[in-house]
């Protein structure tokens, strides 16, 4: 039997990967709980997951496609914006659920010991389920509109991974900050709203005036969106530097999030 030795934590301890693996059941149970709860008590349940991106894509198709008449790379605007929203909702969903998760489970955090990182991490599961439902819809749309993305669709798991890494990095940092500063919960959605408009989700990078293009090119989420549209719609692949950049930035954001979380983690039970 191994003896466990508890000492005062260092300033920024490494995440307890071994403990997390041992407590993986908590990860699944939390994820399952979120999923069950969300579908059990809502009247329209799964329909909501389908309806929400459909209506949003429809609205964008009308505003950007019909009213503003923005280019969509020769594709129907509806499918075009739906593909973008698919990727965005994954990123946004992870942030939204992960960031509020610690405060929502504060009674647990204050009373039971388990690797706290599992709480925000487990919110990925329910977001992934939403994504899966929307993805099925996407496939249906591809058939309806006779779009063949080609072999690039095989790269889809990578875009999913990077969207999650980015979202989780921001999400766990925000979750940790929210324990102490509750107004993070008000500021964050507002920031995400702005980010949504400066990222080519519902419009194409081609619609951006050339003198401003560099601003958009510098946004890692642009790279991610281009990746999603490459894999789902068969549009032009993003340049190689963006792909490399996406890998680096995703892991950097996650590492940054972990750093913030670990730095604040030891005070959770005392502050919450």
């Amino acid at each position, binding site marked *: *039997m191994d*003896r*466990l*030795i*508890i*000492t*005062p*934590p260092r300033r920024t301890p490494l995440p307890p990967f071994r403990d997390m693996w041992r*407590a993986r*059941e*908590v990860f*699944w*149970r*939390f994820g*399952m*709980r979120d999923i*069950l*709860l969300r579908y*059990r*008590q809502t009247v329209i349940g799964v329909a909501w997951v389908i309806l929400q991106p459909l209506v949003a894509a429809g609205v964008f198709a009308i505003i950007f496609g019909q009213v503003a008449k923005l280019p969509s790379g020769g594709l129907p605007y509806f499918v075009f914006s739906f593909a973008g929203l698919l990727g965005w909702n994954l990123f946004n969903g992870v942030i939204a659920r992960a960031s509020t998760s610690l405060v929502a489970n504060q*009674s*647990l955090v*204050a*009373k*039971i*010991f*388990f690797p706290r990182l599992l709480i925000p991490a487990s919110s990925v599961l329910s977001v992934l389920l939403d994504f899966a439902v929307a993805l099925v819809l996407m496939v249906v749309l591809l058939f309806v509109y006779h779009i063949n993305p080609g072999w690039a669709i095989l790269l889809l798991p990578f875009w999913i991974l990077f969207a999650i890494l980015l979202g989780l990095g921001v999400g766990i940092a925000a979750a940790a*900050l929210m324990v*102490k*500063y*509750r*107004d*993070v919960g008000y*500021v964050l959605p507002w920031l995400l709203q702005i980010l949504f408009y400066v990222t080519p989700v519902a419009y194409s990078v081609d619609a951006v005036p050339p003198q401003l293009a560099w601003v958009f090119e510098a946004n890692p989420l642009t790279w991610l969106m281009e990746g999603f549209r490459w894999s789902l719609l068969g549009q032009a692949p993003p340049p190689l530097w963006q792909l490399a950049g996406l890998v680096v930035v995703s892991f950097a954001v996650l590492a940054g999030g972990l750093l913030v979380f670990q730095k604040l983690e*030891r005070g959770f*039970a*005392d502050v919450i």
Partner: protein
Amino acid sequence: MTARDSAISVQGLSKTYRIARGAAHVDRITDAALNRLRHPFRRTQYDVFEAVRDLSFEVPWGEALGIVGRNGAGKSTLLKLLTRVSAPTAGVIELGGRVGSLLEVGTGFHPDLTGRENIYLNGALLGMSRTEIKRRFDEIVDFSGVEKFLDTQVKRYSSGMYVRLAFSVAAHLETEILAIDEVLAVGDAEFQAKSLAKMRDVARDGRTVLYVSHQMQTVTTLCTSAIYLDKGELLYHGSVEGALETYRNSFEKFQARQSVASNRPGTGEVRFASVRVTQPQQTPADEKVIELELPPVTGLIGDYFVSCHINDANGIVIAQCDSRALGVWFSPGRAHQARLSIRNLWLKPGTYTVDAYVCQAGILDAWEGAESFEVLPSYPYPELTSEEALLSGVILTDFTYERG
């Protein structure tokens, strides 16, 4: 005995909390950022509060250790440190195995999940693996006695069922060390007895139980040894009787210390000059009269109010008499001889203590154990009956029965 053989070994354990001094507590990130901008070079000043100070003790295997002490002695903090919920500031804890905690009942239960789902969720949270939960699932359900409602959402459970299920999950933890915080006092008498027996079995299996409680009675029945904490310090480690005796003796010392105003917490702008129970010995149905003396003070703006608590011997607050509730406020400019009369509170025979507080926006004076009085063993009822007729309940009441 070497540290190797013990279940728990604690060396020089301390936990301090830092409380930001000066400005109100900052809980908005915008405020935090603004403060940083306004005073870029000022470091926040902290008051240090030592919840647990330099504890060292060892607990051998198979022992049920009771942790006793007054409110705020650091019992719960110690348990939080041992269960890793909160991190120590200094010192080393060595644990001989996994620690399972049976803290407040129902922590980790979700009202919208069914009993079955909650067993799995709660089991996982308490550190059980999936196979472990599966293996003990039937046992858990059996012990709780809610098998018929396994697939019902627990929000539809009666509070008794809820508590029984929660306790059952935790009681079937297979951890080598089990920490319990004040939870055995749940459910009906039968379930309580069953829980106590279960906990004793745990200790008999050679595992180790840590038990924090106000209720001396359960400590005596469950524990094989005890430690007594006072203001975060370990004053006694040994037999249960010894710890309880220290607890009782310490009250007198505590009372003596509190009678010096400067030893008491509170801002001190107004302090009681005296708190006196007019009848130090009384019968259960007597009117309880407490006289409070408050000197005039200058420099305090606005009226203040007072509050008195009556506590029983186990430290449970039986009654709170807050002058706010009656709209009675005191002006600081003059002296007051206040008189609190409590009617229709029938106390059971025993020793009671009075805590007295002076408050405004915050606490100006907190005098715990300001007075004590004794209720003599006489019963205010017409018939002399067997003990059983009066055994249950915290207080006595003025009741009647009418045969229809």
